[in-house]
């Protein structure tokens, strides 16, 4: 092809141009429809590359954690000791920390998020609703590292001086709220996570509630119920599946969140009853120790934690996608 161009004279160049015009023009369409097929195939190849990418991610993670999987077996998940020097490594403390912080986050964020969704859909005037909706979504756009910075310098001192003493005074008889807090710990991590997942619950629930048909509300109100009774007995049950999807989506975010948690959880591999005590999560230990991990087994064990995290979040997010898709008539069925 390039050789042809190289030996072309001026006159042939013009005729080649004319031929090109004819080639791309409508008259020559029939002869060139295979270009359409080629284009489809090319786009299909790029789409398929995303599937291949997933396969590559799984392969790389499994490959890199092979050593640890072979060495520790399934006991890795419930071994509590984490001692890199003695090569005795278990994931139990990190799984515990991840589960506890995510639970705190959801316990706080789910009621708040649904409340916000109700406000936006049922109460707020349209203009105010759109402004507030934007502000809440902005919470989701703030980078994790900024939450971490704020958590470390503002929230942690606040927990030490006010939140922990108040909880101890009122609920101190529970082992969960016993002992001293030095600011960083499970509770602080759970609190910062709850702020971070709140916009996901609020935004998805808002869309779900907005999709509830107006006739449902009118039917209920016509029976003489109050506004809240309509919301509680009609609107929320109608959007139950979607709100569950929103909660699962938020759970996926909370499980995998790294930087903000790393900066406020205290990074100590231990299982303590009190939420005031420092802990550790799966993502936090990877972030903290990966670049300094020495020895293939240590690195491999950290990667296996990442693999576990990936599998769990993939399952959780997949479940959320399926639930939310079911409401919106399947994956992208707009047309």
């Amino acid at each position, binding site marked *: 092809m390039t050789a042809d161009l190289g030996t072309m004279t001026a006159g042939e160049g013009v005729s080649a141009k004319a031929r090109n015009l004819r080639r791309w023009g409508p008259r020559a369409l029939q002869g060139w429809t295979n270009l359409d097929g080629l284009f489809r195939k090319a786009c299909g190849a*790029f789409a398929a590359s995303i599937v291949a990418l997933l396969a590559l991610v799984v392969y790389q993670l499994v490959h890199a954690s092979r050593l640890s999987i072979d060495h520790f077996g399934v006991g890795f998940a419930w071994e509590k000791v984490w001692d890199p020097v003695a090569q005795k490594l278990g994931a139990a403390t990190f799984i515990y920390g991840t589960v506890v912080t995510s639970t705190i986050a959801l316990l706080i964020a789910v009621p708040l998020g649904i409340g916000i969704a109700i406000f936006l859909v049922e109460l707020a005037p349209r203009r105010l609703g759109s402004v507030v909706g934007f502000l809440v979504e*902005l919470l989701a756009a*703030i980078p994790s590292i900024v939450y971490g910075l704020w958590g470390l310098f503002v929230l942690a001192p606040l927990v030490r001086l006010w939140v922990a003493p108040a909880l101890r005074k009122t609920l101190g008889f529970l082992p969960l709220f016993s002992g001293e807090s030095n600011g960083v710990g499970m509770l602080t991590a759970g609190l910062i996570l709850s702020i971070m997942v709140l916009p996901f619950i609020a935004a998805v629930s808002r869309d779900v509630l907005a999709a509830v048909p107006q006739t449902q509300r009118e039917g209920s109100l016509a029976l003489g119920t109050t*506004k809240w009774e309509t919301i509680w007995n009609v609107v929320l049950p109608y959007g139950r599946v979607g709100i569950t999807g929103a909660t699962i989506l938020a759970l996926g975010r909370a499980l995998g969140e790294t930087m903000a948690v790393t900066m406020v959880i205290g990074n100590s591999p231990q299982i303590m009853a009190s939420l005031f005590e420092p802990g550790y999560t799966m993502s936090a230990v990877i972030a903290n120790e990966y670049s300094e991990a020495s020895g293939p087994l240590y690195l491999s064990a950290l990667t296996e934690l990442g693999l576990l995290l990936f599998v769990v*979040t993939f399952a959780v997010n997949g479940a959320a996608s399926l639930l939310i898709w079911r409401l919106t008539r399947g994956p992208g069925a707009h047309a």
Partner: protein
Amino acid sequence: MTSAVSTAQPVRSISMRRKVVSKVMLGLCVAATCVAVAMLVWILGYVLMQGALSVNPAFFTELPAPVGEPGGGFLNALVGTGIMVGVAAAMSIPIGVLAGIYLAEFGHGWLARAVRFISDTLGATPSIVAGLFAYSLIVVRVHHFSALAGSVALALLMIPTITRTAEEMIRLVPRTLREAALALGVPEWRMTLQIVLPAASSGVITGIMLAIARVSGETAALLFTAFNNRFLSASLDEPMSSVPVQVYTYAIAPYDDWHRQAWAGALVLVTLVAMFSAGVRLATRSRYKLEQ
């Protein structure tokens, strides 16, 4: 008369109770919204205040000072974030846009369903996992941290967002536009690239901007891929600094001057994100207006 009063009385008190419950619960919903907005104002306000007190010209023009000495800036990190996000965008935009075209135009079969599901799920994957992927794919092979590994991790995080927004925006292009082009004898591939894609371009660019905004503040994926570098570097084969990683390093160090610079870095990140978000909102709003 008396009997009428005695029956009306309990009815009225029940309805009062129901009304009060309704008011209280709706009030709690308003309160929940106030809490969320207050958190946003608190966090953004604190970052703006601390950042404004901390940011100075040296922050943008100087390299980090030696450990423990005051002064210095984030020049290396600003340049590093620009380079790595740029390389990640160059890798992810072609894949994302063409896959989006496939989903919107030809996406009816099992492959399209699989790609949609994987994009949605991969898009919510923890960024630390993207870092692990790039580490075992690149860092392990070349035996050192590199900016290229950082870019690959960021690209993995960008592709799903770009794919799904591109698909949705291309779907919004009216069918009549396609039919008009086909009626004039334009082949399908040319119609897609020269008629449909330009018509959807503002939305597609919005999606790309959102993806860029998200990865610009990304820390966990870069911690052990691009790592950090105290010097100015433009080589993809060497460790490279980025704003979020340098903010993290400075925040957990015991120097007040470094904390000050971490706040300035946070201010830069938040400004970037707020600008993108506001821009995206303006762009999509004018788009909705056009459609109505």
